[in-house]
């Protein structure tokens, strides 16, 4: 894998985690019965380090080209790890509020009834997709959200659930039933 | 003078300030009088009617109509006053082209509550309109629908007369109403007008340059008499 690709990957990770870190200095308190404002960092279990694998092989990897099978295996390994990133069980069933970018999945052209909330812009374009614990599936079917344009920044309030995924790896993902979606200006 | 419906003193009026057109030292018209006002063309006959009706204000002097000092009223109040107490007939184009004959006659009742009440008390506004039209020999024509403008001039003038009289205004102002009529029709129109004014006990001020009608009236006023002074030539 070329140096540039690795650099881009690290920047992407840095952006993702850094955005989360930058938003709040202290860890959020768990307040039962009321809405808890969470950051993207809160969705990552403490101790989980997504770029662990990359750091391990960084020097070797720097000299590999993209089509080298070893580089591809590494990319596949990183992807696999991120596909099944662990979730924070303590957040299951909590009412939370989280800001991020909206990626439409289901809608009727005017309002969105199902979407993915991701931490940074262009989450599906030129950089690798974020780890699966940095993606939240949001359902707003009860009150579809009127969308103005792609990748709007929104703050979503709702009940967060950690949903077990039916496959061998026993991984889980975040799902939220939104009660409130508000656009966040620019 | 008590009993005057119109009383003017030291009245001065001109369309351009500084160029007075009319000067009236004293004028008094009593109730139910039939007054013939004459003077040469441009002598301010129409302006006099506009003054009396409160459409324009004199530059100087006093003008009392039915006890009210007109120059003391604001524009809207004068409009209301005119609606309540005056009926006006013009020389031609008296009627609103898009309204029917009856609608034209009942027009004043749209703008004067007093006249509407008076007409209603007589059996309904529309019924009153038809009654007046009947008295003016227009009963048959009133039934016909269709353009008001297809009426002959004489018929139009009589409709205007009915409109001027509906709701019993105290004063009827007529500005050359017969000038567009044939000679033989003029007298007939006048007789009908006189009869109605008498029935309704209205005061009539009739402006015309046709001296042949003068003898039919109670009183005749030349604008010279009431103090007409022409504007200086080089003002």
């Amino acid at each position, binding site marked *: 894998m070329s140096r540039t690709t690795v650099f881009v990957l690290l920047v992407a990770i840095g952006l993702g985690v850094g955005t989360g870190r930058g938003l709040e200095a202290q860890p959020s308190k768990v307040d039962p019965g009321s809405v808890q404002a969470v950051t993207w960092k809160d969705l990552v279990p403490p101790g989980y380090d997504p770029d662990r694998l990359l750091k391990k092989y960084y020097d070797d990897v720097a000299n590999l080209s993209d089509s080298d099978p070893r580089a*591809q295996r590494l*990319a596949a390994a990183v*992807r696999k790890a991120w*596909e099944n990133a662990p979730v924070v069980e303590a957040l299951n069933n909590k009412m939370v509020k989280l800001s991020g970018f909206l*990626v*439409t*999945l*289901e*809608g*009727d*052209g*005017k309002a*969105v009834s*199902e979407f*993915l909330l991701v931490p940074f812009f262009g*989450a*599906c374009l030129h950089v690798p*997709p974020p780890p*699966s614990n940095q*993606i*939240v*599936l949001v359902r707003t079917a009860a009150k579809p959200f009127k*969308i103005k344009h*792609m990748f709007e920044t929104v703050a979503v309030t709702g009940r967060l659930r950690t949903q077990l*995924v*039916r*496959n*061998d*790896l026993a991984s889980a*993902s*975040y*799902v939220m039933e939104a009660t409130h979606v508000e656009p966040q200006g620019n | 003078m008590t009993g005057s419906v119109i009383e003017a003193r030291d009245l001065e009026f001109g369309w351009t300030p500084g160029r007075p057109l009319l000067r009236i030292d004293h004028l008094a018209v009593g109730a139910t009088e039939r007054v013939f006002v004459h003077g040469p063309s441009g002598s301010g006959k*129409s302006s006099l009617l*506009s003054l009396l*009706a409160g*459409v*324009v204000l004199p530059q100087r002097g006093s003008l009392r109509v039915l006890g009210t000092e007109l120059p003391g009223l604001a524009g*809207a109040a004068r*409009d*209301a006053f*005119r*609606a*309540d107490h005056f009926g*006006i007939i*013009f020389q*031609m*184009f*008296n009627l*609103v*082209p*898009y*309204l029917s004959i009856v*609608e034209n006659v009942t*027009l*004043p009742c*749209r*703008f*004067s509550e007093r006249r509407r009440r008076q007409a209603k008390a007589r059996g309904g506004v529309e019924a009153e309109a038809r009654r007046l039209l009947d008295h003016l020999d227009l009963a048959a024509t009133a039934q016909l629908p269709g353009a008001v403008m297809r009426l002959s001039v004489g018929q139009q003038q009589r409709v205007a007369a009915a*409109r001027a009289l509906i709701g019993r205004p105290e004063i009827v102002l007529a*500005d050359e109403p017969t000038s567009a009529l044939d000679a033989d029709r003029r007298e007939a129109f006048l007789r009908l007008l006189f009869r109605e004014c008498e029935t309704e006990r209205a005061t009539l001020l009739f402006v015309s340059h046709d001296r042949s009608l003068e003898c039919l009236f109670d009183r005749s006023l030349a604008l010279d008499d009431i103090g007409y002074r022409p504007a200086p030539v080089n003002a």
Partner: protein
Amino acid sequence: MPILGLAVKSLLNRRLTAGLMVASIGLSVMLLLGVERLRTQARAGFANTISGTDLVVGARTGATALLLHAVFRIGYATNNVSWTSYQDIARHPRVRWTVPLSLGDSVRGFAVLGTNQDYFRHYKYARHHGLEFASGRPFDDVYDAVLGAAVAQELDLRVDGSLVVAHGAVDVDHARHDDKPFRVVGILKKTGTPVDRTVHVSLAGLEAIHIGWQSGMRAPGASVSADDARRQDLTPRSITAFLVGLDSRTAVFHVQRSVNDYRKEPLLAVIPGIVLQELWDAIGVAEQALLGVSGLVALVGLGGMVTALLTGLNERRREMAVLRSVGARPRHVLALIVGEAGALAAAGLALGVVLLYLGLFVAQSFIQTYIGLAIEIGLPSRYEWLLLASVLLASVMAGLWPAIQAYRYSLVDGMTVHV
């Protein structure tokens, strides 16, 4: 209100001019509302065509082209997906179901879709609405076909009827696979999507009719009977595209990336919601421009009204003088003109709405026939009421100009006769 009555009667007296003004305002209102309606309805129609599908995968063409072709049957595929690649991707641990799609043939103008029984299990539209059968069942035998509602209706086919598939998009005699007719075994309920205008057959059936057609034409002397074809290996070698459902929707980015990075064949995986959103964003500029033009047309209509009112004023000074003489205040004269403007606008709005609904009914059948989307014709939305109200308000305000002019005239003229 006495003045309004006068205003209406005054307009009725000038029927021709008033009629023209009403027509002009009516047309512009129809345009304004119509553009907005078709815009939202078209979007809804497209968005409601596919639901619950996480990815659409095809050859590496373009995202919009892929979605339009695979799901909306618009356009042509330039390349296919090999069967082995399809099997490979289908085996991805996060993939829960797939539906293969094969397009290219037609029956009398209707697209023929080769697929398998998973299509009837997993294809959803309009917010997770599954496909339902009006009569019959999914296909089973090689030569079974399932018809969309519009196909059955227009070709007057029922269960047990038969049809012949033509090669390519245009149905011509020499291109028909008429030695291997299909039997209708099921008819789907109406969906308001391109499904209604599709003939569904099994992949095996499509393979069977194409034996001997490799060059695109019937190879002379290479004809195989329908029954003989059954016995051959009818596994397709390639398909046009396939739909993918995952075990968790949050995995969609990762699987998409895997497919796009697939080394053995250039493939493209798209997320339907995103592609549609991109489409709307791109078209959005054109839509805004269209709305802007409609707004200008409305302004022109209003301008015409103001001009007509203004130029008519001079002749009406006599009429105003008469009204003044019977006691109308100058504000009544103002109200008269404003009332005329308002009455014209109201009539124009009413006409516009009538024309709109007429136009929608016409457009509805047209769009249904050619694109297969259902356009809803409902009562005006809140936005549309707002639009109508602002046109009315704008007309009344535009009417103020000639009204103030008339007001000034009436003050100056008083009762003076302008003969």
